[in-house]
């Protein structure tokens, strides 16, 4: 596979996170788009590629948005792939830049959260969901993940205290990232353990909070980014795989197992050289699957890994091993802005590697790994993706 040389990612923006909003997705996408180009000093007319990620656009799509925003792109794309949207967007956009199909691409994710909209979205998520999972208790993704979590716990002996390690360190990170919706609250082990039970082993702080918000970034050539005098990141490697391991009875691994080796080989780094990791954390068990499948520990050993590893952004925890993980609190503390949540880890990595992180910056970070996971169609997540980003070589 051809590498992603010469492509720059820049101008990460997280916009307008709120628990509930009467605004529609087009508002979140439009306002995020405006911030993204403003921050980079790019004119709207210069944007000739436009990619959109959203679950709540309804009858609108990326092309109807071009008329709303009065732009005339020669390249459009839409990635409604939940937690893998960010990685899929950066891969597609990078190829379009390399091939000259577009010169400046804005990738924008945005989702609304009106009263009862999450219930509606969960009830019509997909054909399988409508016919075969929503009628059984209507728990939304909580149900599928409680079954996966239950199975994982029994198989590997993982306990709630282990899951708490992920939630607690992420809350600490969120306390230093102002847009995080739960960032103003601390979380103790006692509070975590005593939280309201939601589904089987899942309690309140194991579940993401759906919210509204927008995430966006720009993709262009390195030359163009240098010309704009903007700090940027490069893509060392990126991979995706969909409907991996279809014959597994229940999800204990994702597509990462199939491409992790190629991912590291292309990037010419190993898991031990990664300075910060952003996993897709709609539930702690999913972060554990990613850490295992991406080689940070062996399958089933995530419980040992999290008990040995300090995952705070500044390494201020007491544990000896350090790995800054979900350095802005992840979705568990920042909130899950629908499909835009698929950009959260990517944007956080861009901020860290372009020195735009304000209070939660990881010291001396050079290489970051992002992992994406998306689309619970029936009993498992279908999309897996991962990318390794780095500061440009000067």
């Amino acid at each position: 596979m051809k590498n992603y040389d010469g492509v720059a990612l820049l101008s990460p923006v997280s916009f307008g996170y709120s628990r509930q909003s009467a605004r529609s997705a087009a508002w979140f996408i439009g306002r995020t788009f405006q911030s993204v180009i403003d921050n980079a000093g790019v004119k709207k007319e210069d944007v000739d590629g436009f990619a959109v990620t959203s679950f709540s656009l309804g009858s609108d799509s990326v092309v109807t948005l071009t008329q709303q925003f009065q732009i005339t792109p020669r390249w459009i794309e839409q990635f409604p792939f939940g937690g893998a949207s960010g990685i899929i967007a950066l891969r597609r956009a990078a190829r379009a830049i390399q091939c000259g199909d577009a010169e400046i691409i804005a990738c924008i994710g945005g989702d609304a959260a009106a009263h009862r909209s999450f219930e509606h979205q969960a009830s019509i998520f997909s054909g399988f969901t409508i016919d075969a999972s929503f009628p059984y208790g209507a728990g939304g993704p909580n149900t599928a993940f409680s079954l996966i979590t239950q199975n994982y716990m029994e198989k590997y002996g993982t306990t709630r205290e282990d899951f708490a390690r992920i939630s607690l360190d992420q809350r600490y990170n969120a306390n230093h990232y102002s847009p995080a919706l739960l960032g103003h609250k601390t979380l103790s082990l006692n509070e975590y353990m005593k939280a309201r039970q939601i589904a089987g082993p899942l309690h309140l702080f194991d579940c993401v909070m759906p919210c509204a918000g927008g995430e966006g970034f720009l993709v262009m050539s390195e030359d163009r980014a240098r010309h704009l005098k903007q700090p940027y990141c490069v893509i060392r490697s990126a991979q995706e795989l969909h409907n991996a391991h279809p014959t597994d009875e229940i999800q204990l691994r994702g597509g990462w197992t199939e491409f992790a080796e190629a991912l590291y080989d292309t990037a010419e780094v190993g898991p031990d050289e990664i300075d910060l990791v952003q996993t897709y954390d709609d539930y702690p068990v999913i972060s554990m699957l990613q850490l295992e499948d991406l080689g940070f520990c062996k399958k089933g050993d995530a419980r040992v890994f999290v008990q040995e590893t300090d995952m705070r952004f500044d390494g201020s925890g007491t544990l000896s091993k350090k790995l800054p993980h979900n350095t802005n609190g992840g979705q568990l503390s920042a909130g899950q802005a629908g499909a835009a949540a698929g950009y959260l880890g990517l944007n956080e990595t861009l901020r860290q590697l372009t020195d735009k992180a304000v209070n939660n910056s990881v010291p001396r970070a050079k290489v970051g790994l992002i992992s994406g996971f998306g689309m619970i169609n029936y009993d498992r997540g279908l999309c897996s993706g991962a990318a390794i980003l780095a500061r440009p070589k000067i």
Partner: protein
Amino acid sequence: MTTNELMKSRLKYNRPSLRARARPPKNRTPLGEAFSAANLGRSLKLQYCIDCNRFQYPSQEVCQACLKDNLVWREAVGTGHIISQTALFHSLWEFFKRRTSQKPWPVATVALDQGPIVFTHLDVEAFDDGKILHVSERTQVKVFSHYDCSMRSILITTTKETDTQTRETRQQIVARMGLSKPAFRDGGI
């Protein structure tokens, strides 16, 4: 319609929590409706590809293996083993919100001996007198279908020994689980 009646009907539509009667989700795709129809009065019928000799679930337009559409509804045995089971304490849907406020709602995924993996309600009372919620992994079980009070076929997991031969025995289980009647609210609309 008087203004009062109109406002009431709007309120009933917009605020499920105010309804006198809440029912399980009724919405299905055309394939889901076909599944419901095929299972009326039957203990379990699933989509079957006559070319591949293979069952599949959830219902789909084409065979997952050969991508042709020589699919029929065929009686399935329903035996299998539990993959994972859990209980819901929270739901997005008013019917289950009212049920889970009384006691947790048990569900399970089951691997049928004939192939498909099915997502089902769990007849937890058939196991250990309902006192212990936990049904151990890989327990041998039986899955059958029946209609709920939204008149849609749903799948239920029970013990291998439970009698599910007749419509009456299946109806009893569904009634015991609280699926045969709406969840009521006193003074609701």
